[in-house]
């Protein structure tokens, strides 16, 4: 029996190799960043870091507060109250997840332009005719960046807060009421403190996305650490400097990941009890409509308005007979090819890591630890990862070129490094998804198959792969769409003259030309809707199963 449970050396070796591969860029980065002399650091600390670091901290604070406010407030509204539109808002509040931050910023730059549709309509409604008479605050500012990122990223907090409120036993709130607390008081003193770990998990994910963002901050003119890494390498060709800023950013990331891990450990509070969930209270009259508006506003701002804008711009462009340029079509093909390649490699590697981690008991702990290590990439901002990969990749390319007598950069030029960067960043999704799928399968299945004479590999093929298909399909979809949306690493690692939809959009927004950017953005958003539909259904269906069980 013991041999059945142990993981074969090949699987374990493969899993450890993948985890080491994930660590390569991080170690390279630290070596570069810490090894290049203190003089460099002094220059950075004196000139580059203070401004960029302050911007990053302000952005994190603002986005953190805004996402907490919107995410927690909306989650509480839809779980504990009933009002017109609640059943739709329940999932519609997730829609902004389909919008990468750089697309929201792209759309609002045009939507909120002083002579754009929104301010124009506002002036028309107020009977003013000059942009000088009424001007909304400038979007290209710290406040604007916080607004855009907050409404794009609140779903991370919303999702985890909603899951928490949905499973919070109703009797705790009732006990608080019976002890003399008002509804609001019971929320503050009981529901909110109990949800704190879940809020911290959602918050840290939203903040990691904020650190990863390059497009929105760049478009809105906020010089963050992430943007600084990019410009240091692209415009100043200073790889050592970029690596130093990246390693500084890495410490912020580590702090956020520790916050998330710590919060997850505390999440088991009371979850052992299986209880009646909070029943939504029906709101009447003005408060009902107020709730509909309050919970509808984030969807409107974070998704509907920018999506309508993109659809409108696309329709306008296509109806003018311009058609789609061959350059954009090539970018679309490039995007799909890149996403497909990333998906195959990432899900394949995820399967190896998750399968190797499936053992039980003390063996499991060690292999599960390898799986955690292999999943680290999700937290590392794309620019940081890219800078970390550049040095080893350039060195490898140079020796490969010398060895085989090839011109240029064989690995970088073929996009291999870009695919690897995406695979490292997205590996957590298939590892987590397939691990969760495996955890639901009883160990006896494998034992039965092995006792019937099947090998480990044959068991995986004949028993587990068919059973794991939903998990594999779901994580493939997630990886595919995220690879389509990926911007920061793609910007830094793409081969020369290679554009994806995201970089196409970035180039247009950077030039301020706004020609076919909306079409590229719309294509990304439509693809981005697929995993959101998946997400919207999943937590609900789990809740429904629980309801039926009772």
């Amino acid at each position: 029996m013991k041999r059945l449970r142990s993981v074969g050396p090949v699987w374990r070796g493969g899993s450890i190799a993948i985890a080491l591969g994930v660590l390569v860029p991080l170690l390279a980065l630290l070596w570069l960043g810490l090894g290049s002399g203190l003089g460099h650091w002094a220059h950075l600390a004196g000139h580059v870091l203070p401004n960029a670091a302050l911007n990053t901290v302000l952005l994190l604070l603002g986005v953190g507060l805004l996402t907490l406010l919107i995410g927690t407030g909306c989650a509480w509204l839809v779980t504990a109250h009933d009002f017109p539109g609640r059943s739709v808002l329940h999932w519609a509040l997730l829609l902004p997840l389909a919008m990468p931050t750089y697309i929201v910023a792209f759309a609002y730059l045009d939507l909120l332009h002083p002579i754009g549709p929104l301010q124009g309509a506002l002036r028309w409604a107020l009977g003013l005719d000059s942009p000088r008479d009424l001007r909304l605050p400038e979007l290209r500012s710290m406040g604007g960046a916080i607004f855009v990122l907050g409404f794009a990223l609140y779903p991370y907090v919303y999702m985890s807060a909603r899951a928490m409120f949905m499973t919070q036993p109703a009797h705790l709130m009732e006990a608080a009421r019976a002890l003399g607390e008002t509804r609001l008081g019971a929320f503050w003193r009981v529901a909110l403190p109990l949800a704190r770990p879940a809020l911290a998990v959602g918050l840290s994910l939203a903040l990691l996305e904020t650190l990863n963002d390059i497009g929105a901050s760049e478009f809105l003119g906020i010089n963050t650490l992430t943007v600084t890494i990019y410009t240091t390498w692209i415009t100043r060709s200073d790889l050592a400097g970029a690596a130093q800023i990246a390693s500084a950013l890495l410490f912020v990331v580590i702090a956020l990941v520790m916050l998330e891990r710590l919060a997850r450990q505390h999440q088991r509070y009371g979850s052992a009890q299986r209880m009646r969930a909070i029943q939504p209270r029906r709101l009447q009259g003005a408060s009902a409509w107020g709730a509909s508006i309050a919970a509808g506003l984030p969807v409107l701002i974070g998704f509907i308005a920018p999506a309508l804008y993109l659809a409108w711009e696309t329709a306008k462009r296509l109806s003018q007979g311009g058609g789609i340029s061959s350059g954009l079509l090539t970018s679309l093909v490039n995007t799909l090819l890149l996403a497909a390649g990333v998906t195959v490699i990432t899900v394949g590697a995820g399967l190896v890591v998750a399968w190797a981690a499936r053992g039980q008991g003390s063996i499991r702990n060690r292999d599960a630890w390898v799986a955690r290590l292999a999943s680290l990439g999700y937290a590392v901002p794309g620019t940081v990862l890219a800078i970390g990969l550049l040095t080893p990749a350039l060195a490898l390319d140079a020796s490969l070129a010398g060895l085989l007598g090839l011109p240029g950069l064989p690995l970088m030029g073929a996009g291999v490094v870009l695919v690897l960067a995406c695979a490292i960043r997205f590996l957590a999704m298939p590892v987590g998804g397939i691990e969760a799928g495996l955890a639901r399968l009883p160990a006896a299945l494998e034992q039965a198959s092995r006792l019937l004479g099947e090998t480990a590999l044959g068991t995986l093929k004949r028993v587990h792969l068919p059973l794991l298909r939903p998990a594999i399909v779901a994580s493939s979809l997630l990886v595919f769409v995220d690879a389509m949306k990926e911007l920061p690493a793609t910007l830094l690692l793409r081969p020369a003259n290679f554009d994806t939809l995201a970089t196409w959009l970035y180039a247009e927004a950077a030039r301020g030309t706004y020609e076919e950017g909306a079409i590229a953005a719309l294509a990304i958003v439509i693809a981005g809707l697929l995993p959101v539909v998946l997400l919207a259904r999943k937590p609900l269906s789990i809740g429904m199963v629980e309801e039926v069980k009772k």
Partner: protein
Amino acid sequence: MSVALKMVGVGLAYDGAQGQHRVVADFSLALEAGHIGCLLGPSGSGKSTVLRAIAGFEPVRAGSIVLGERLLSSPTVHLPPEQRHVGLMFQEYALFPHLTAAHNVGFGLRRLARAERRERVAAMLDLVGLGHTAQRYPHELSGGQQQRIALARALAPQPALLLLDEPFSNLDASTRERLTDEVRDILKMAGQTALLVTHNEAEAQVFADHIGVVSGGRLASWNPTLSPSTQGPQ
């Protein structure tokens, strides 16, 4: 003896898919101050719904619920739970998992000054014999200890009426027998008016002064038990 709780012709219903679903009809009883009443019936008989209506978690469709001189519920009046001075002890105890035993007990005492609150919490913990567990969290307590903390928490604000919803059903048989006696002694010592809901007839006989049998959402009978303390608190 003055009447503490008075229910007259109370009717309760849920909003279902096909309109209102009647759960309790024409429910009337009177419980004297300092006495312990018990609603006895199988699950689904509507007894827990009656308890939730007294606590203010269910609206009343007909009749009225009066505690002392105050009208708690009628079809037109619904006092919110926090203003009823009604304590509730849950079947699952519902201890706040993020608070220590002492903070759980002190939860309903926010209006008291700090020193006074600390004193009351200590007194309540002593009353249930758990002074040494003050700084522990609920998951660090045994089932019986959690139950007694829940009792102390419900008693601390000195409610006009204490409701107990199957408070002993989550305990093993021997603990249950011991705690039934213990809790009854504590309630009698405090002179607390209380209403218990249970499906266990033996428990009802030992615990209560008055037993009402509930079936099909109606109170079939409301009679004193044979226990000597029916004559009131000693």
